[in-house]
């Protein structure tokens, strides 16, 4: 039987008033705020150290005297970490993922598992809490291109994550490509850490931001952040190629060069504009996808974001449509750390039944407006499929090519990603469509304004041993 990390609380019912899933900016801010307001909190996190992906940092054994040099806003994290450390009302449970959650009469039951799935893995745990805050963040959206499965091609966020935690680089000469503000942050980290970045290749021309001048003016900190990344790139002579994309990666056992092409307004490569750039790594990404499977599996309402992803729908107090389930940060739509921090504070107050601090609410509203502007500015154009060849693997896990997906759509009549999946196995592999899902949906004819993207449905949020499932009685969930 699974064991519980917690005993029943003194007030009966659930042992925790609040379980926060994810210790990034949103979850961390929420946990310390809620605990300061008197709530007994559990902070469950997949990482070994609090901070999430944004404040990801090296293990103490690596002896980094200046981790802040790889970060933006490190003082904020240092203050939050100090409040977390030894807080009498927070139980920090690192190295654990919640693989499923269920509604109970008096709140929620979370089922936890470690990454380590062998026979000597620690037993599963359950955790009961009156309220749950989903602060699980996001992962990167990928649009496939020929050669993107070559070793040395990595996600932009992945390159940054490995750098921040392991102090390693994917190569010595790294092309950074895709779309969105993360590219500038990743490229600036890579060059300051010693990599050469021959080009940053951005598919948009940033003109989308011009449509929201008022929103820009209300968010000077975001402009300063962008300018700081830009200055770091200028200092290192990094060339920013706008309205361009990596349309092919070359190499046999690992990447040795890329072809970059200009894009038209719809992201279709313009013939004759190709240019080859030598490199031994490529860091690529097209924005972030909210990681919300626990909530969508429970039936929480969602919304389509301006960049075509699906986020949780929340009210002004960060409540989802399900009683006792709250969400903060990227799960409500990707918007960066400042927004996540504000939403975490607001959610904590809502759970504690306290009025929201006006400052946090104002900051949330300003940053949310910026996030929506940013998402619209970097929404992928439909023409990106123009750089696929029939042989390009779209689904990395099941090695399903663009040709097979096209066949499923054009010859077998598939109209949506789900049907494509059933016909081709695209999205059925280890990652459960997290890497290929947006691309497959696009190739299947959506998402279209009249058909907003559907949330993915995954009963298990992460891999879990069969023995763990066998341990569960039906009443357990």
């Amino acid at each position: 039987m699974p064991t519980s990390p917690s005993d029943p609380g003194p007030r009966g019912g659930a042992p925790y008033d609040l379980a926060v899933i994810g210790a990034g900016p949103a979850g961390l801010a929420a946990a310390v705020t809620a605990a300061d307001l008197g709530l007994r909190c559990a902070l469950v996190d997949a990482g070994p150290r609090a901070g999430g992906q944004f404040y990801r940092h090296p293990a103490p054994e690596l002896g980094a005297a200046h981790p802040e040099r790889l970060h933006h806003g490190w003082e904020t994290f240092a203050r939050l970490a100090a409040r977390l450390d030894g807080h009498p009302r927070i139980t920090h449970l690192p190295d654990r993922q919640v693989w499923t959650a269920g509604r109970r009469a008096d709140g929620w039951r979370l089922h936890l598992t470690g990454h380590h799935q062998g026979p000597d893995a620690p037993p599963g745990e359950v955790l009961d809490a009156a309220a749950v805050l989903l602060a699980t963040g996001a992962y990167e959206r990928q649009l496939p291109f020929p050669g993107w499965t070559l070793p040395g091609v990595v996600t932009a966020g992945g390159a940054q994550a490995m750098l921040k935690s392991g102090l390693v680089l994917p190569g010595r000469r790294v092309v950074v490509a895709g779309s969105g503000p993360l590219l500038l942050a990743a490229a600036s980290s890579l060059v300051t850490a010693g990599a050469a970045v021959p080009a940053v290749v951005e598919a948009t021309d940033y003109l989308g931001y011009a449509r929201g001048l008022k929103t820009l003016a209300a968010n000077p900190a975001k402009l300063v952040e962008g300018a700081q990344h830009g200055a770091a790139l200028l200092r290192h002579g990094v060339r920013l190629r706008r309205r361009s994309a990596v349309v092919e990666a070359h190499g046999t056992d690992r990447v040795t060069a890329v072809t970059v092409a200009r894009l038209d307004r719809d992201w279709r490569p313009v013939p004759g504009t190709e240019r080859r750039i030598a490199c031994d790594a490529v860091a690529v990404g097209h924005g972030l996808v909210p990681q919300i499977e626990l909530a969508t599996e429970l039936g929480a309402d969602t919304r389509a974001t301006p960049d075509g992803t699906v986020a949780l729908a929340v009210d002004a107090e960060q409540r989802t449509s399900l009683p006792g389930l709250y969400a903060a940060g990227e799960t409500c739509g990707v918007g960066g750390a400042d927004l996540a921090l504000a939403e975490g504070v607001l959610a904590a107050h809502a759970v504690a039944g306290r009025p929201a601090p006006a400052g946090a609410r104002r900051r949330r509203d300003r940053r949310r407006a910026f996030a929506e502007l940013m998402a619209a500015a970097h929404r992928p154009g439909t023409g990106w499929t123009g750089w696929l060849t029939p042989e390009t693997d779209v689904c990395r896990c099941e090695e399903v090519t663009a040709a097979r997906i096209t066949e499923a759509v054009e010859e077998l009549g598939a109209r949506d990603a789900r049907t494509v999946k059933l016909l081709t196995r695209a999205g059925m592999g280890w990652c459960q469509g997290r890497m290929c899902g947006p691309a497959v949906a696009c190739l299947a004819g959506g998402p279209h304004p009249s058909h907003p993207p559907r949330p993915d449905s995954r009963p298990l949020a992460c891999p879990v041993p069969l023995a763990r499932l066998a341990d569960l009685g039906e009443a357990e969930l």
Partner: protein
Amino acid sequence: MARTPADLVGAEPAPAHHIEFDGRPVPALPGQTIAAALWAEGITAWRTTRVGGRPRGAFCGIGVCFDCLATVNGRPNQRTCLLPARPGDTVTTQEGHGRADLAV
């Protein structure tokens, strides 16, 4: 200008230990994951795919893509971007689904 990530953050790590990758010793700093230790040695591939037998290594770096799977201490399908490298770990390139011992 920093020449390495360790220079940039002023790292003074604890002494390196070693793991074994396909029979060769690879140094690993305490606190690094297996994927990080392999990247530090310039190794970017440690798996071959089930269908095409193509090389793969770390892609997402945060545990969601499963491209970085390897056989660690005889156990296949371990996410090396999440798994800390421990002294004496043996990492072997995983072929296909990594279940050759089951003949499936």
